[in-house]
């Protein structure tokens, strides 16, 4: 096999791991609260700026900056839920979508006001690894492993903790759960906090690979939502698998053509999938 194609395939899988976290977070919030956070990628951006600011400006060690980003974005997720989403829970779903779109502008503008439009780089790079002429970036590999650990932790949380089981139950049946003594409003807040924390984790993994700037959310926000929809909105496993599929499509697409065309192909593939399976690739 062509080592470059192999490299593109491997990079695609690594990219999928990075897509997977925001997809899981978005899916969790949608599955539980039934609202798409259109500003999800901007939450990730705030986390990236947080890590950058704490590490390069305040001189915190990187692991402490990472540890701070998670609760920061998680708190932002809770705030978003309490201030914007909760008052709109009874409104038409489209209003909720558009209100979070307003938050997208707010966060973008806020980032511009605070940090300016410069590209900010963390300047951390792990040495690349080589195996039979195939080069893999060490940073990407580390981020991939961390994404898998994050996804595993989420799975364990949903599977084994009381709150996690309540979250899954609410996602399954919104009407019956309150009768079982679960307060859905509290579960919504917890789901928003976990969704925010996943955005924070994604921010840590992205900030070591990409320079952060106020519009970075637009570069991976749309594809995140498309992956969610492709896997079936609210379907965690579907979204997780679709993230890798999309990663491989983008990566091999840019191997054969160029970056823009690879995204065109990925988005075109998304539209075809929606027409073929309107409830997602892995819908039952």
């Amino acid at each position: 096999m062509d080592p470059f194609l192999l490299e593109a395939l491997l990079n695609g899988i690594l990219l999928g791991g990075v897509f997977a976290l925001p997809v899981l977070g978005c899916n969790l919030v949608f599955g539980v609260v039934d609202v798409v956070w259109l500003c999800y990628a901007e939450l990730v951006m705030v986390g990236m700026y947080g890590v950058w600011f704490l590490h390069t400006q305040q001189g915190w060690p990187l692991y402490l900056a990472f540890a701070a980003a998670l609760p920061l974005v998680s708190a932002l997720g809770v705030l978003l839920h309490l201030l914007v989403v909760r008052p709109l829970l009874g409104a038409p779903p489209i209003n909720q979508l558009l209100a979070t779109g307003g938050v997208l502008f707010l966060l973008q503008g806020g980032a511009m006001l605070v940090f300016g439009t410069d590209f900010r780089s963390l300047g951390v790079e792990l040495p690349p690894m080589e195996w039979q002429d195939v080069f893999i970036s060490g940073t990407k590999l580390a981020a991939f492993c961390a994404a898998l650990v994050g996804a595993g932790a989420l799975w364990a949380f949903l599977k084994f903790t009381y709150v996690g089981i309540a979250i899954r139950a609410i996602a399954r049946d919104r009407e019956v759960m309150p009768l079982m003594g679960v307060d859905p409003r509290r579960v919504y807040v917890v789901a928003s906090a976990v969704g925010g924390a996943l955005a924070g984790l994604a921010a840590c993994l992205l900030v070591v690979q990409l320079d952060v700037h106020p519009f970075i959310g637009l570069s991976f926000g749309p594809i995140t939502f498309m992956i969610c929809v492709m896997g079936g909105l609210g379907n965690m496993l579907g979204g997780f698998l679709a993230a890798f599929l999309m990663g491989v499509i983008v990566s091999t697409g840019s191997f054969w053509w160029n970056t823009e065309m690879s995204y065109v192909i990925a988005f075109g593939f998304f539209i075809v999938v929606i027409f073929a399976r309107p409830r997602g690739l892995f819908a039952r």
Partner: protein
Amino acid sequence: MIPAVVAIVAVLAVVPLLGTPDYFLHLGITSMLMAVSGTGWAMMGRFGLVSLGHGAFIGTAAYVMALLWNEAGLTPWLGLPIGVGAAMLLAALLGYPCFRLRVVGHYFALVTLAAGEIVRLLIVALREHTGGSLGMTPRLAPDAPFLAMQFSKTGFWWMALLVWVFGLAVWWMLDRSMSSKALAAINEDQDAAASIGIQVTSEKLRVTIISAGIAALGGALGAQYRLYLNPESLAGIGISLQIVFGAIAGGMYSMLGPSVGAVFTIALEEVLRVGFGTAFIGAAPFVYGVLLVLFILFLPRGIVGFFAKRR
């Protein structure tokens, strides 16, 4: 509503003759053209068909028009209708499978979002012709300004006014047609609407194509006015959400709502730009965002809807 519109149009028609400064003419032209796009969007938005990809239609129309002029020398007088036609064709190609396969709500919004991004990325990818992210300029023709549709601000003012009136007229006719009732019924309950004989797919498809055409007309004419095309400002998620913001702020359920919203948005942008200068470059989107959230929370029917209810 009609006498009010006639009075506004009469006043607007004489504004350029009164020696109005170019700056205000510029704001008026951009407001009117943005109002056209917002009115187009609201034609379907008010029936729950929320598109987050109207940038796809604007970008298609603007680039088809500009490329025909630059590469084939075809006058924008023909290029604009061809571009708008291309946008409507795109709307049909996208809308038919969506409505046929019942892609609704969030799914529809995200499919249209993908379409907007595809058009933006295609424009960037075809950089040999379109100039990619750097944008492109229609070839200047100082010796034949009419043929090239490159008028003074006064000329464009009347043109924008004409297109704006056209957009409102389409809204008015649509509002009085059976289609509007059918779409309202579909929005309430698609299955019930289908059961009383409403052709759900074709009703939705028709309004989508009209909406895309009107939005594309306003957007492409705006590009022709500015004589500059850029994929970020004509296609993709940014412009798509801006159109939506204008329509929501003004009120998407009344004829003049999106126009009021467009004036409001552009006035806001100018006040922030002049007031803060470039020192606070993010102030405009920040305030936009805050206002959009506040509007949806407290004034879901927009400025016009709020006052209409009071009366």
